[in-house]
């Protein structure tokens, strides 16, 4: 059974060969054959990490057989009959392929699934993105896997014919076909390099052949993470083909294996794997390459224990800049701001004095829209007070005051009565209720009671790094008695106990994020720079999630359900975000070019924004439970 397993793998990797060659592993493994002294119960550990069971003692045998096979290939009639195709001339190649092929591939019994990994990758939701769109995952399992086995029974089979649209899709999705002619390849190392080279040339040709071929960028990561989407088609005669999608899958396997190795503190293995990941990633294109790069970097940091990777003093200014680019290039932050503003606006209906406390002041991009809405509301604008909280700045510039000044200018222009106060705090837990409260009427403040709203965008999860911090902040919030608390958080569980769970979750989440950035990118220079900086912004988060531990790991994202439980458990009750917010959010997303992948959903009164089927951020609104007496008290005060 082990041999069969390997054969089918080998067939997938290299194409049709005489079935006499046993134990042919994918070529990348050749590199690791030298490391077969990982005596770990006789099974080669590196390959085991990929899900292939090969005895270490067999490794030399395997290497020898590989060499034999190569000699056989060179000498056989395969070499003379091979037709060379120039992968950079995609349209002509496609024409010749289509004219040559006649019948659909015969149905074959299901082969052993070579992609099974012992990690049981959670089935990624069948991403509606195009590369899986043509195939039901169940069908993919039968048709594609069977076609790989076809290649193993090589001489007896007619060249399997590919559905024309499948061929088109394949060539569209990155020029996946790579042709191996009769070039003798002595060691699998060179074969690997050759594969990389031709695949990279085909991916560059993909860029060039925009025209008739389906415009589909490199296979999306979501589809690659689902084991069923192993869409390799190798034909036997006359052309030997290799798929870069297969490389993508190996990349994911390598990432998982490396994470597992790191988790088990097996740093030698992890080191090799990290290097392999980098090589594999360079052959991919688009989002996959970037995500793999960032995860590889994070894993490398963890292996080599590079702490602290982020110089904290430069941190806040730099991360502000990055967040601005993130704000501009994709709708997540805009969605967060617009939905939170709508909830706050509705909560402030009818109030003459309002106070907003912003835990995530940064550049204050959320507040112009709210001020404008308050200015235009029926009954005129209230007097608006804003308290901004931010981290200390490295160069002693008072960024908070500058933001406040700009907001004051805007408020003056649109005739909204505005007051601003900035608080510098290392952590939100340092805040005390008395700092946030206003002057009481006795000491000169206005007689009208103030209605308070608290806003937090991507800030609360940082408090989970220190035990007790979140509870303190929630207690402070309760003490201020806000009318509404708006919370926007990432919709992912990056705070689970085991490292592997966290890693897998993060891989899925950030792959989807990067996919969405890819989808929305215009080709303009500034937009590209924005996209790049957004990727760096996300890359830092990835680094933090993967490579840090303890109090350094501040990106402790939790899902909406988890936050709901927390908030409900500390005395808050949910406020439903109205349909106005939903409509505005949907309209906002319709404006983004490439925005047909974004989805706004409403989940029990909270709004989530996601890419295709995966929600990525969630906005929720809360109020202190049992607070109806305070609102009626203020209503009574208004009546007087």
């Amino acid at each position, binding site marked *: 059974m082990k041999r069969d397993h390997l054969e089918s793998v080998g067939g997938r990797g290299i194409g049709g060969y005489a079935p006499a060659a046993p134990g042919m592993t994918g070529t990348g493994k050749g590199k690791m054959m030298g490391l077969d002294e990982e005596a770990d119960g006789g099974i080669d550990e590196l390959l085991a990490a990929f899900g292939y069971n090969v005895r270490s003692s067999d490794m030399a045998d395997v290497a020898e057989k590989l060499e034999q096979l190569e000699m056989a290939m060179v000498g056989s009639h395969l070499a003379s009959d091979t037709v060379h195709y120039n992968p950079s001339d995609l349209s002509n190649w496609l024409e010749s392929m289509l004219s040559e092929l006649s019948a659909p591939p015969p149905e074959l019994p299901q082969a052993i699934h070579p992609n099974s990994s012992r990690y049981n990758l959670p089935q990624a939701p069948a991403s509606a993105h195009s590369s899986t769109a043509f195939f039901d995952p169940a069908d993919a399992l039968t048709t594609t896997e069977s076609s790989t086995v076809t290649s193993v029974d090589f001489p007896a089979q007619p060249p399997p014919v590919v559905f024309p649209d499948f061929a088109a899709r394949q060539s569209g999705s990155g020029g996946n076909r790579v042709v191996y002619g009769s070039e003798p390849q002595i060691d699998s190392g060179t074969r690997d390099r050759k594969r990389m080279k031709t695949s990279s040339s085909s991916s560059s040709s993909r860029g060039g052949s925009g025209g008739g071929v389906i415009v589909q960028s490199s296979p999306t990561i979501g589809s690659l993470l689902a084991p069923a989407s192993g869409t390799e088609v190798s034909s036997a005669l006359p052309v030997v083909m290799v798929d870069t999608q297969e490389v993508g899958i190996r990349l994911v396997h390598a990432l998982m294996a490396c994470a597992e190795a790191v988790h088990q503190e097996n740093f030698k293995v992890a080191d090799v794997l990290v290097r392999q990941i980098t090589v594999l990633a360079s052959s991919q294109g688009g989002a996959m390459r970037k995500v793999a790069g960032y995860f590889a970097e994070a894993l490398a940091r963890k292996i080599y224990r590079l702490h602290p990777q982020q110089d904290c003093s430069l941190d806040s200014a730099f991360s*502000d*800049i990055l967040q*601005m680019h993130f*704000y*501009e*290039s994709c*709708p997540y932050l805009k969605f967060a701001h*617009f939905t939170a*503003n709508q909830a706050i606006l509705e909560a402030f209906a009818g109030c003459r004095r309002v106070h907003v406390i912003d835990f995530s002041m940064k*550049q*204050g*991009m959320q507040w*112009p*829209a709210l*001020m*404008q*809405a308050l*200015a*235009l*509301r*029926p009954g*005129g604008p209230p007097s608006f007070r804003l308290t901004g909280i931010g981290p200390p700045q490295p160069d002693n510039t008072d960024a908070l005051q*500058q933001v406040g*000044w*700009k*907001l004051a*200018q*805007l408020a003056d*222009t*649109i*005739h909204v009565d505005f007051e601003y106060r900035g608080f510098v705090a290392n952590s939100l837990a340092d805040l005390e209720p008395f700092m946030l409260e206003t002057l009481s009427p006795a000491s000169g403040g206005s007689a009208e009671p103030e209605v308070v709203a608290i806003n937090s965008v991507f800030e609360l999860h940082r408090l989970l790094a220190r035990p007790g911090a979140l509870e303190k902040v929630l207690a402070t919030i309760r003490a201020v008695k806000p009318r509404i608390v708006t919370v926007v958080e990432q919709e992912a569980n990056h705070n689970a106990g085991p490292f592997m769970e966290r890693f897998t979750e993060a891989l899925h989440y950030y792959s989807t994020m990067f996919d969405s950035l890819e989808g*929305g*990118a*215009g*080709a*303009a*220079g*500034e*937009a590209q720079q*924005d996209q790049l900086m957004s990727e760096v912004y996300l890359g830092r988060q990835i680094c933090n999630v993967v490579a840090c531990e303890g109090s350094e790991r501040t990106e402790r994202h939790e899902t909406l359900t988890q936050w709901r439980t927390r908030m409900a458990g500390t005395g808050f009750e949910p406020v439903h975000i109205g349909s*106005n917010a939903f*409509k*505005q959010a949907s*309209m*906002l997303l*319709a*404006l*983004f*070019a490439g*925005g*047909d992948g974004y989805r706004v959903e409403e989940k029990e009164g909270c709004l989530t924004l996601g890419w295709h089927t995966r929600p990525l951020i969630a906005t929720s609104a809360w109020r202190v439970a049992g607070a109806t007496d305070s609102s009626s008290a203020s209503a009574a005060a208004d009546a007087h």
Partner: protein
Amino acid sequence: MENAEGEKERDNTRRYNINDNHDLLAEILARLDGPSLAAAASVCRLWRAVSRRDTVWEALCNRHVAADFPGTRAVVAALGGYRRLYCRCVGPISNRLAVSGEHATTAAAVAARLSLSLSLFSIDYYERLGDGGWQRPSSLLFLRSPVDVS
């Protein structure tokens, strides 16, 4: 007799020039759509001046996003005027929404479009204030069509 009167009338008609009556011209231009209005602004100096009147653009904006808030005009004027509102927000928004197929003309949809436009407009104004670290106001860049610079 009738011919002479007819001739005099035709003479009068011939001597009437739209450029003599700027308000009438403005009224007419106010019924144009965005691109046509921009084209009208290229005709001559007078037309350029008239077509830059904010009332003209206000009428245009109101056709896209009905402004039912009484203070809207003041706010928009403060933030830069209807012409800027149209050029930066309402126009691109309408085009983008038309492309993506959202032709909703219900009052709620139009009101949502208005509030969205105004919000984006105010964010844009805010970005242009002061120097800060942002040399270019770019929060509305996502509304521009991507330029192929390959």
